[in-house]
Protein backbone atom coordinates (compact mmCIF):
# COMPACT_ATOMS: atom_id res chain seq x y z
CA UNK A 1 0.00 0.00 0.00
CA UNK A 2 1.26 3.45 -0.89
CA UNK A 3 1.38 6.46 1.39
CA UNK A 4 -0.82 9.33 0.18
CA UNK A 5 0.20 12.95 0.63
CA UNK A 6 -1.24 16.37 -0.08
CA UNK A 7 1.05 18.47 -2.27
CA UNK A 8 -1.15 21.38 -3.25
CA UNK A 9 -4.23 23.33 -2.19
CA UNK A 10 -6.36 26.07 -3.73
CA UNK A 11 -9.44 27.81 -2.39
CA UNK A 12 -12.09 30.20 -3.68
CA UNK A 13 -14.43 30.91 -0.80
CA UNK A 14 -16.54 33.59 0.82
CA UNK A 15 -13.83 34.21 3.43
CA UNK A 16 -11.11 34.66 0.82
CA UNK A 17 -10.35 33.90 -2.80
CA UNK A 18 -6.90 32.41 -2.20
CA UNK A 19 -5.04 30.59 0.59
CA UNK A 20 -3.46 33.70 2.06
CA UNK A 21 -6.76 35.60 2.37
CA UNK A 22 -8.49 32.57 3.84
CA UNK A 23 -5.74 31.95 6.40
CA UNK A 24 -6.11 35.54 7.61
CA UNK A 25 -9.92 35.29 7.83
CA UNK A 26 -9.73 32.02 9.74
CA UNK A 27 -7.31 33.48 12.25
CA UNK A 28 -9.41 36.62 12.68
CA UNK A 29 -12.69 34.71 12.91
CA UNK A 30 -14.14 36.70 10.01
CA UNK A 31 -17.61 35.88 8.72
CA UNK A 32 -18.33 35.73 4.99
CA UNK A 33 -22.12 35.86 5.36
CA UNK A 34 -24.15 38.58 3.62
CA UNK A 35 -27.72 39.33 2.58
CA UNK A 36 -28.54 38.60 -1.07
CA UNK A 37 -31.43 40.96 -2.02
CA UNK A 38 -32.27 38.79 -5.07
CA UNK A 39 -33.40 36.04 -2.71
CA UNK A 40 -35.99 38.30 -1.08
CA UNK A 41 -37.58 38.99 -4.47
CA UNK A 42 -37.32 35.32 -5.36
CA UNK A 43 -39.48 34.22 -2.40
CA UNK A 44 -36.86 32.91 -0.01
CA UNK A 45 -37.56 32.66 3.71
CA UNK A 46 -33.96 33.72 4.27
CA UNK A 47 -31.77 35.92 2.07
CA UNK A 48 -28.60 35.03 4.01
CA UNK A 49 -25.75 33.44 2.09
CA UNK A 50 -22.00 33.26 1.69
CA UNK A 51 -20.95 35.07 -1.48
CA UNK A 52 -17.95 35.02 -3.81
CA UNK A 53 -17.17 37.14 -6.87
CA UNK A 54 -17.81 35.54 -10.23
CA UNK A 55 -14.31 35.25 -11.70
CA UNK A 56 -13.59 36.92 -15.05
CA UNK A 57 -11.95 34.16 -17.06
CA UNK A 58 -11.69 36.11 -20.31
CA UNK A 59 -8.02 36.17 -21.18
CA UNK A 60 -7.41 33.06 -19.05
CA UNK A 61 -9.48 30.62 -21.08
CA UNK A 62 -10.74 30.54 -24.65
CA UNK A 63 -14.36 31.24 -25.53
CA UNK A 64 -14.88 27.57 -26.33
CA UNK A 65 -13.65 26.62 -22.85
CA UNK A 66 -15.60 29.34 -21.05
CA UNK A 67 -19.01 28.72 -22.59
CA UNK A 68 -19.04 25.15 -21.29
CA UNK A 69 -18.60 26.28 -17.69
CA UNK A 70 -21.28 27.12 -15.15
CA UNK A 71 -20.35 29.13 -12.07
CA UNK A 72 -19.40 26.08 -9.96
CA UNK A 73 -16.86 25.11 -12.62
CA UNK A 74 -15.51 28.65 -12.79
CA UNK A 75 -14.96 28.57 -9.01
CA UNK A 76 -13.34 25.13 -9.32
CA UNK A 77 -11.04 26.39 -12.06
CA UNK A 78 -9.84 29.26 -9.85
CA UNK A 79 -9.18 26.91 -6.93
CA UNK A 80 -7.47 24.38 -9.17
CA UNK A 81 -4.99 26.77 -10.79
CA UNK A 82 -3.93 27.87 -7.30
CA UNK A 83 -3.57 24.25 -6.16
CA UNK A 84 -1.56 23.21 -9.21
CA UNK A 85 0.69 26.24 -8.85
CA UNK A 86 1.35 25.52 -5.18
CA UNK A 87 1.94 21.88 -5.97
CA UNK A 88 4.46 22.96 -8.64
CA UNK A 89 2.64 20.95 -11.27
CA UNK A 90 2.87 22.54 -14.72
CA UNK A 91 1.35 21.52 -18.03
CA UNK A 92 4.54 19.73 -19.01
CA UNK A 93 4.22 17.42 -15.97
CA UNK A 94 0.54 16.79 -16.74
CA UNK A 95 1.33 16.03 -20.39
CA UNK A 96 3.86 13.40 -19.33
CA UNK A 97 2.05 11.79 -16.39
CA UNK A 98 -1.32 10.20 -15.81
CA UNK A 99 -2.95 12.86 -13.62
CA UNK A 100 -6.60 12.20 -12.69
CA UNK A 101 -9.53 14.20 -11.34
CA UNK A 102 -12.24 13.26 -8.81
CA UNK A 103 -14.34 16.26 -7.82
CA UNK A 104 -17.38 16.64 -5.62
CA UNK A 105 -20.42 18.38 -7.08
CA UNK A 106 -24.13 17.77 -6.69
CA UNK A 107 -25.92 20.42 -8.72
CA UNK A 108 -25.82 22.67 -11.76
CA UNK A 109 -29.25 24.14 -11.10
CA UNK A 110 -28.72 27.59 -12.60
CA UNK A 111 -27.33 26.22 -15.86
CA UNK A 112 -30.11 23.66 -16.21
CA UNK A 113 -32.94 26.06 -15.43
CA UNK A 114 -31.63 28.92 -17.56
CA UNK A 115 -31.01 26.73 -20.60
CA UNK A 116 -34.49 25.22 -20.39
CA UNK A 117 -36.01 28.66 -19.96
CA UNK A 118 -34.28 29.61 -23.22
CA UNK A 119 -35.63 26.55 -25.03
CA UNK A 120 -39.15 27.27 -23.73
CA UNK A 121 -38.85 30.84 -24.95
CA UNK A 122 -37.42 30.05 -28.38
CA UNK A 123 -39.18 26.68 -28.83
CA UNK A 124 -36.01 25.48 -30.52
CA UNK A 125 -33.30 23.39 -28.86
CA UNK A 126 -30.49 24.56 -31.16
CA UNK A 127 -30.89 28.11 -29.95
CA UNK A 128 -29.80 27.14 -26.45
CA UNK A 129 -26.23 27.14 -27.79
CA UNK A 130 -23.45 24.59 -27.63
CA UNK A 131 -22.30 25.21 -24.05
CA UNK A 132 -25.58 24.38 -22.29
CA UNK A 133 -25.17 20.61 -22.24
CA UNK A 134 -21.68 20.81 -20.75
CA UNK A 135 -22.77 23.37 -18.15
CA UNK A 136 -25.85 21.41 -17.16
CA UNK A 137 -24.51 17.95 -16.44
CA UNK A 138 -23.62 17.15 -12.87
CA UNK A 139 -20.13 16.13 -13.97
CA UNK A 140 -19.61 19.61 -15.43
CA UNK A 141 -16.61 20.34 -13.20
CA UNK A 142 -14.67 17.20 -14.03
CA UNK A 143 -15.55 17.23 -17.74
CA UNK A 144 -14.39 20.82 -18.09
CA UNK A 145 -11.26 20.70 -15.94
CA UNK A 146 -10.10 17.40 -17.45
CA UNK A 147 -10.37 18.97 -20.89
CA UNK A 148 -8.75 22.28 -19.95
CA UNK A 149 -5.77 20.65 -18.23
CA UNK A 150 -5.65 17.67 -20.66
CA UNK A 151 -5.81 15.10 -17.87
CA UNK A 152 -5.39 11.43 -18.78
CA UNK A 153 -6.05 9.66 -15.46
CA UNK A 154 -9.24 8.80 -13.58
CA UNK A 155 -12.04 11.25 -14.39
CA UNK A 156 -15.42 11.39 -12.70
CA UNK A 157 -17.62 13.41 -10.38
CA UNK A 158 -18.67 12.35 -6.92
CA UNK A 159 -22.18 13.34 -5.88
CA UNK A 160 -22.88 12.75 -2.22
CA UNK A 161 -24.77 15.84 -1.11
CA UNK A 162 -22.87 17.83 1.52
CA UNK A 163 -20.21 15.13 1.85
CA UNK A 164 -19.28 15.22 -1.88
CA UNK A 165 -16.00 17.09 -1.43
CA UNK A 166 -14.89 14.87 1.43
CA UNK A 167 -15.69 11.64 -0.42
CA UNK A 168 -13.73 12.90 -3.44
CA UNK A 169 -10.62 13.18 -1.26
CA UNK A 170 -11.38 9.79 0.28
CA UNK A 171 -11.76 8.08 -3.08
CA UNK A 172 -8.63 9.74 -4.46
CA UNK A 173 -6.81 8.51 -1.35
CA UNK A 174 -8.04 4.96 -1.95
CA UNK A 175 -7.00 4.90 -5.61
CA UNK A 176 -3.52 6.24 -4.88
CA UNK A 177 -3.08 4.01 -1.83
CA UNK A 178 -3.94 0.97 -3.96
CA UNK A 179 -1.34 2.00 -6.56
CA UNK A 180 -3.91 2.64 -9.29
CA UNK A 181 -3.08 6.35 -9.68
CA UNK A 182 -0.08 8.51 -8.76
CA UNK A 183 -1.64 11.95 -8.72
CA UNK A 184 -5.26 13.10 -8.53
CA UNK A 185 -6.84 16.56 -8.49
CA UNK A 186 -9.74 16.41 -6.06
CA UNK A 187 -12.04 18.81 -4.26
CA UNK A 188 -15.54 20.18 -4.19
CA UNK A 189 -17.52 22.95 -5.90
CA UNK A 190 -20.75 24.66 -4.97
CA UNK A 191 -22.79 27.11 -7.04
CA UNK A 192 -24.13 30.24 -5.30
CA UNK A 193 -27.35 31.58 -6.77
CA UNK A 194 -31.03 31.75 -5.87
CA UNK A 195 -32.00 28.96 -8.27
CA UNK A 196 -29.62 26.52 -6.59
CA UNK A 197 -30.90 26.92 -3.06
CA UNK A 198 -34.64 27.72 -3.28
CA UNK A 199 -35.89 24.22 -2.58
CA UNK A 200 -33.43 23.87 0.33
CA UNK A 201 -34.69 27.18 1.77
CA UNK A 202 -38.20 25.80 1.39
CA UNK A 203 -37.46 23.17 4.04
CA UNK A 204 -37.25 25.96 6.59
CA UNK A 205 -33.77 25.00 7.74
CA UNK A 206 -31.98 28.26 6.91
CA UNK A 207 -31.26 30.82 9.60
CA UNK A 208 -33.46 33.90 9.41
CA UNK A 209 -31.24 36.02 11.64
CA UNK A 210 -31.02 38.84 9.09
CA UNK A 211 -30.45 41.54 11.69
CA UNK A 212 -26.84 40.50 11.99
CA UNK A 213 -25.75 38.23 9.13
CA UNK A 214 -22.30 37.65 10.65
CA UNK A 215 -23.98 36.09 13.70
CA UNK A 216 -26.47 33.94 11.80
CA UNK A 217 -24.35 30.81 11.50
CA UNK A 218 -23.72 29.64 15.08
CA UNK A 219 -22.98 25.91 15.19
CA UNK A 220 -23.35 24.26 18.62
CA UNK A 221 -24.78 27.44 20.18
CA UNK A 222 -28.12 27.06 22.01
CA UNK A 223 -29.57 29.98 20.08
CA UNK A 224 -28.86 28.62 16.59
CA UNK A 225 -31.83 28.76 14.25
CA UNK A 226 -30.56 27.09 11.12
CA UNK A 227 -27.77 27.00 8.56
CA UNK A 228 -26.62 29.63 6.06
CA UNK A 229 -25.93 28.37 2.52
CA UNK A 230 -22.66 29.27 0.87
CA UNK A 231 -20.34 28.10 -1.88
CA UNK A 232 -17.23 28.45 -4.02
CA UNK A 233 -14.65 25.73 -4.61
CA UNK A 234 -11.72 23.99 -3.00
CA UNK A 235 -9.05 21.87 -4.69
CA UNK A 236 -6.41 19.57 -3.26
CA UNK A 237 -3.67 17.70 -5.07
CA UNK A 238 -3.31 14.17 -3.71
CA UNK A 239 -0.25 12.22 -4.71
CA UNK A 240 1.70 9.12 -3.79
CA UNK A 241 4.59 9.87 -1.45
CA UNK A 242 7.00 8.43 -4.04
CA UNK A 243 5.70 10.69 -6.80
CA UNK A 244 5.89 13.75 -4.56
CA UNK A 245 9.46 13.01 -3.48
CA UNK A 246 10.55 12.18 -7.02
CA UNK A 247 9.48 15.54 -8.38
CA UNK A 248 10.52 17.52 -5.29
CA UNK A 249 6.97 18.63 -4.52
CA UNK A 250 6.04 20.43 -1.29
CA UNK A 251 4.54 17.79 1.01
CA UNK A 252 1.92 19.51 3.14
CA UNK A 253 0.31 16.58 4.91
CA UNK A 254 -0.44 12.88 4.77
CA UNK A 255 -3.91 11.39 4.48
CA UNK A 256 -3.97 8.65 7.09
CA UNK A 257 -7.54 7.43 6.88
CA UNK A 258 -10.93 7.74 5.26
CA UNK A 259 -14.00 6.43 7.03
CA UNK A 260 -17.42 6.29 5.44
CA UNK A 261 -20.87 5.07 6.32
CA UNK A 262 -24.54 5.45 5.57
CA UNK A 263 -27.10 6.11 8.30
CA UNK A 264 -29.74 3.77 6.87
CA UNK A 265 -32.22 6.18 8.38
CA UNK A 266 -34.06 9.42 7.55
CA UNK A 267 -33.40 11.32 4.29
CA UNK A 268 -32.56 14.62 5.99
CA UNK A 269 -32.34 14.11 9.76
CA UNK A 270 -28.82 13.05 10.78
CA UNK A 271 -28.31 10.43 13.47
CA UNK A 272 -25.49 9.57 15.90
CA UNK A 273 -24.58 6.06 14.87
CA UNK A 274 -23.70 6.71 11.21
CA UNK A 275 -21.22 9.54 11.88
CA UNK A 276 -19.71 7.60 14.81
CA UNK A 277 -19.06 4.60 12.59
CA UNK A 278 -17.42 6.78 9.92
CA UNK A 279 -15.09 8.34 12.53
CA UNK A 280 -14.28 4.93 14.04
CA UNK A 281 -13.49 3.54 10.60
CA UNK A 282 -11.18 6.45 9.80
CA UNK A 283 -9.35 5.93 13.11
CA UNK A 284 -8.98 2.19 12.51
CA UNK A 285 -7.68 2.75 8.99
CA UNK A 286 -5.23 5.37 10.26
CA UNK A 287 -3.96 2.93 12.86
CA UNK A 288 -4.02 5.63 15.54
CA UNK A 289 -5.93 6.04 18.79
CA UNK A 290 -8.79 8.48 19.27
CA UNK A 291 -6.60 10.34 21.74
CA UNK A 292 -4.03 11.01 18.97
CA UNK A 293 -6.51 13.33 17.22
CA UNK A 294 -5.80 16.88 18.36
CA UNK A 295 -8.44 18.78 16.42
CA UNK A 296 -11.83 17.91 14.91
CA UNK A 297 -13.24 20.15 12.22
CA UNK A 298 -16.91 19.41 12.80
CA UNK A 299 -19.50 19.17 10.07
CA UNK A 300 -21.88 21.14 12.34
CA UNK A 301 -23.96 23.37 10.08
CA UNK A 302 -25.89 25.31 12.75
CA UNK A 303 -29.09 23.27 12.60
CA UNK A 304 -30.63 22.28 15.95
CA UNK A 305 -30.77 18.49 15.43
CA UNK A 306 -27.68 18.04 13.23
CA UNK A 307 -25.22 19.79 15.54
CA UNK A 308 -26.56 18.04 18.65
CA UNK A 309 -26.29 14.60 17.06
CA UNK A 310 -22.77 15.29 15.80
CA UNK A 311 -21.77 16.49 19.27
CA UNK A 312 -23.08 13.19 20.69
CA UNK A 313 -21.20 11.22 18.02
CA UNK A 314 -17.93 13.08 18.69
CA UNK A 315 -18.36 12.50 22.42
CA UNK A 316 -19.13 8.82 21.81
CA UNK A 317 -15.90 8.39 19.82
CA UNK A 318 -13.54 10.63 21.79
CA UNK A 319 -15.07 10.66 25.29
CA UNK A 320 -14.14 13.06 28.10
CA UNK A 321 -11.16 15.38 27.54
CA UNK A 322 -11.46 14.92 23.78
CA UNK A 323 -9.75 16.94 21.04
CA UNK A 324 -10.37 20.59 20.31
CA UNK A 325 -13.49 20.99 18.15
CA UNK A 326 -14.73 23.86 16.01
CA UNK A 327 -17.02 24.33 13.04
CA UNK A 328 -15.61 26.72 10.45
CA UNK A 329 -19.14 26.91 9.03
CA UNK A 330 -19.67 29.55 11.72
CA UNK A 331 -17.64 31.82 9.41
CA UNK A 332 -18.21 30.38 5.94
CA UNK A 333 -21.78 29.16 6.20
CA UNK A 334 -22.51 25.74 4.75
CA UNK A 335 -20.51 25.29 1.58
CA UNK A 336 -22.48 22.11 0.83
CA UNK A 337 -20.92 20.04 -2.01
CA UNK A 338 -17.66 21.95 -1.51
CA UNK A 339 -17.55 21.81 2.29
CA UNK A 340 -15.75 18.50 2.76
CA UNK A 341 -12.83 19.71 0.64
CA UNK A 342 -12.73 23.31 1.85
CA UNK A 343 -12.79 22.26 5.48
CA UNK A 344 -9.77 20.02 4.96
CA UNK A 345 -8.00 23.06 3.50
CA UNK A 346 -9.10 25.27 6.42
CA UNK A 347 -7.80 22.66 8.85
CA UNK A 348 -4.56 22.28 6.88
CA UNK A 349 -4.02 26.06 7.00
CA UNK A 350 -4.51 25.97 10.77
CA UNK A 351 -2.12 23.02 11.15
CA UNK A 352 0.52 24.70 8.98
CA UNK A 353 0.25 27.95 10.90
CA UNK A 354 -0.16 26.65 14.46
CA UNK A 355 -3.63 27.87 15.34
CA UNK A 356 -7.18 26.60 15.71
CA UNK A 357 -9.79 28.81 14.09
CA UNK A 358 -12.71 29.75 16.30
CA UNK A 359 -16.26 28.49 16.20
CA UNK A 360 -17.52 32.08 16.12
CA UNK A 361 -20.89 33.02 17.61
CA UNK A 362 -20.63 30.28 20.20
CA UNK A 363 -21.99 31.94 23.32
CA UNK A 364 -23.82 29.17 25.17
CA UNK A 365 -23.19 25.63 23.94
CA UNK A 366 -26.23 23.38 24.12
CA UNK A 367 -26.28 20.35 26.40
CA UNK A 368 -24.70 17.90 23.94
CA UNK A 369 -22.06 20.41 22.80
CA UNK A 370 -21.10 21.39 26.33
CA UNK A 371 -19.37 18.01 26.68
CA UNK A 372 -16.95 18.90 23.85
CA UNK A 373 -13.73 20.87 23.98
CA UNK A 374 -15.08 23.64 21.76
CA UNK A 375 -12.88 26.51 20.59
CA UNK A 376 -14.81 29.78 20.53
CA UNK A 377 -11.81 32.15 20.32
CA UNK A 378 -8.75 31.74 18.09
CA UNK A 379 -6.32 29.44 19.82
CA UNK A 380 -2.58 29.65 19.13
CA UNK A 381 -1.82 25.97 19.25
CA UNK A 382 0.56 23.71 17.38
CA UNK A 383 -1.05 20.43 16.35
CA UNK A 384 -0.13 17.55 14.07
CA UNK A 385 -3.25 15.44 13.43
CA UNK A 386 -6.85 16.37 12.67
CA UNK A 387 -10.11 14.73 11.69
CA UNK A 388 -12.62 16.41 9.38
CA UNK A 389 -16.27 15.33 9.36
CA UNK A 390 -18.73 15.71 6.49
CA UNK A 391 -22.29 14.44 6.38
CA UNK A 392 -25.02 14.75 3.76
CA UNK A 393 -28.66 14.14 2.86
CA UNK A 394 -29.48 10.48 2.54
CA UNK A 395 -27.30 9.80 5.57
CA UNK A 396 -23.96 9.74 3.73
CA UNK A 397 -21.00 10.26 6.07
CA UNK A 398 -17.29 10.81 5.52
CA UNK A 399 -14.45 11.31 7.99
CA UNK A 400 -10.88 12.09 6.93
CA UNK A 401 -7.79 11.99 9.14
CA UNK A 402 -4.77 14.00 8.07
CA UNK A 403 -1.37 14.33 9.66
CA UNK A 404 1.27 17.01 9.33
CA UNK A 405 4.11 15.73 7.17
CA UNK A 406 7.39 16.01 8.98
CA UNK A 407 10.20 15.71 6.44
Amino acid at each position, binding site marked *: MKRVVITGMGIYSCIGENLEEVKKSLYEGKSGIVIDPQRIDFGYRSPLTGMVNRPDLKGML*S*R*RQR*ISMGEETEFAYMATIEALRNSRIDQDFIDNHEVGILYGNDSTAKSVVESNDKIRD*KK*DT*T*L*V*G*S*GAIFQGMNSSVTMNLSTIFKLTGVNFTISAACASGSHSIGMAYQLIKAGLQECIICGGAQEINPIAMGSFDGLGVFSTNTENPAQASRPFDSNRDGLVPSGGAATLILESYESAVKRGAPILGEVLGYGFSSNGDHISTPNVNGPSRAMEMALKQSNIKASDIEYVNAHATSTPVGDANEARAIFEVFGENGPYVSSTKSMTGHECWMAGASEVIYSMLMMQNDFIAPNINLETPDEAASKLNLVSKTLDKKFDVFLSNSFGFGGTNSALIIKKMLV
Partner: protein
Amino acid sequence: MDKEVIIEKINDFLIDEFEVESEDISPEANLKDTLELDSLDFVDLVVAVESNFGVKLVGEDFVGVKSLEDFYNLIERKLS
Protein backbone atom coordinates in the same frame (compact mmCIF):
# COMPACT_ATOMS: atom_id res chain seq x y z
CA MET B 1 -30.86 44.78 -45.25
CA ASP B 2 -27.83 46.18 -47.09
CA LYS B 3 -24.98 43.77 -47.66
CA GLU B 4 -22.67 46.30 -45.97
CA VAL B 5 -24.78 46.17 -42.82
CA ILE B 6 -24.88 42.36 -42.92
CA ILE B 7 -21.09 42.20 -43.22
CA GLU B 8 -20.61 44.67 -40.39
CA LYS B 9 -22.98 42.80 -38.07
CA ILE B 10 -21.37 39.43 -38.81
CA ASN B 11 -17.86 40.79 -38.34
CA ASP B 12 -18.92 42.41 -35.07
CA PHE B 13 -20.25 39.21 -33.53
CA LEU B 14 -17.32 37.19 -34.81
CA ILE B 15 -14.98 39.61 -33.03
CA ASP B 16 -17.08 40.19 -29.89
CA GLU B 17 -18.67 36.81 -29.26
CA PHE B 18 -16.35 34.39 -31.05
CA GLU B 19 -13.20 36.33 -30.17
CA VAL B 20 -11.87 36.15 -33.73
CA GLU B 21 -8.94 38.53 -34.28
CA SER B 22 -10.05 41.38 -36.53
CA GLU B 23 -6.97 40.94 -38.74
CA ASP B 24 -8.09 37.35 -39.47
CA ILE B 25 -11.35 38.59 -40.92
CA SER B 26 -11.44 38.93 -44.71
CA PRO B 27 -13.97 37.84 -47.33
CA GLU B 28 -11.69 35.06 -48.52
CA ALA B 29 -10.95 33.73 -44.99
CA ASN B 30 -11.94 30.08 -44.60
CA LEU B 31 -14.85 30.02 -42.16
CA LYS B 32 -13.81 26.84 -40.37
CA ASP B 33 -10.01 26.86 -40.44
CA THR B 34 -8.96 30.49 -40.45
CA LEU B 35 -11.48 31.41 -37.81
CA GLU B 36 -10.75 28.20 -35.86
CA LEU B 37 -14.43 27.29 -35.58
CA ASP B 38 -15.14 23.68 -34.62
CA SER B 39 -18.37 21.73 -35.01
CA LEU B 40 -19.75 23.07 -31.71
CA ASP B 41 -19.07 26.66 -32.78
CA PHE B 42 -21.38 26.18 -35.74
CA VAL B 43 -24.25 25.68 -33.27
CA ASP B 44 -23.33 29.01 -31.70
CA LEU B 45 -23.12 30.57 -35.16
CA VAL B 46 -26.77 29.54 -35.66
CA VAL B 47 -27.63 31.19 -32.31
CA ALA B 48 -25.76 34.39 -33.23
CA VAL B 49 -27.45 34.60 -36.63
CA GLU B 50 -30.87 34.11 -35.06
CA SER B 51 -30.31 36.81 -32.47
CA ASN B 52 -28.75 39.28 -34.93
CA PHE B 53 -30.88 38.68 -38.02
CA GLY B 54 -33.93 36.79 -36.78
CA VAL B 55 -33.42 33.89 -39.17
CA LYS B 56 -32.79 30.27 -38.28
CA LEU B 57 -30.09 28.39 -40.17
CA VAL B 58 -30.05 24.61 -40.42
CA GLY B 59 -27.17 22.25 -41.17
CA GLU B 60 -27.91 22.05 -44.90
CA ASP B 61 -27.57 25.82 -45.22
CA PHE B 62 -23.86 25.47 -44.60
CA VAL B 63 -23.30 23.12 -47.55
CA GLY B 64 -20.93 24.91 -49.92
CA VAL B 65 -20.18 27.66 -47.41
CA LYS B 66 -16.40 27.73 -47.28
CA SER B 67 -15.32 31.33 -47.01
CA LEU B 68 -16.56 34.25 -45.00
CA GLU B 69 -17.82 35.76 -48.26
CA ASP B 70 -19.94 32.62 -48.77
CA PHE B 71 -21.33 33.12 -45.27
CA TYR B 72 -22.18 36.81 -45.93
CA ASN B 73 -23.95 35.70 -49.11
CA LEU B 74 -25.86 32.97 -47.25
CA ILE B 75 -27.27 35.49 -44.79
CA GLU B 76 -28.07 37.93 -47.57
CA ARG B 77 -29.98 35.17 -49.38
CA LYS B 78 -31.85 34.18 -46.23
CA LEU B 79 -32.90 37.77 -45.61
CA SER B 80 -34.06 38.44 -49.14
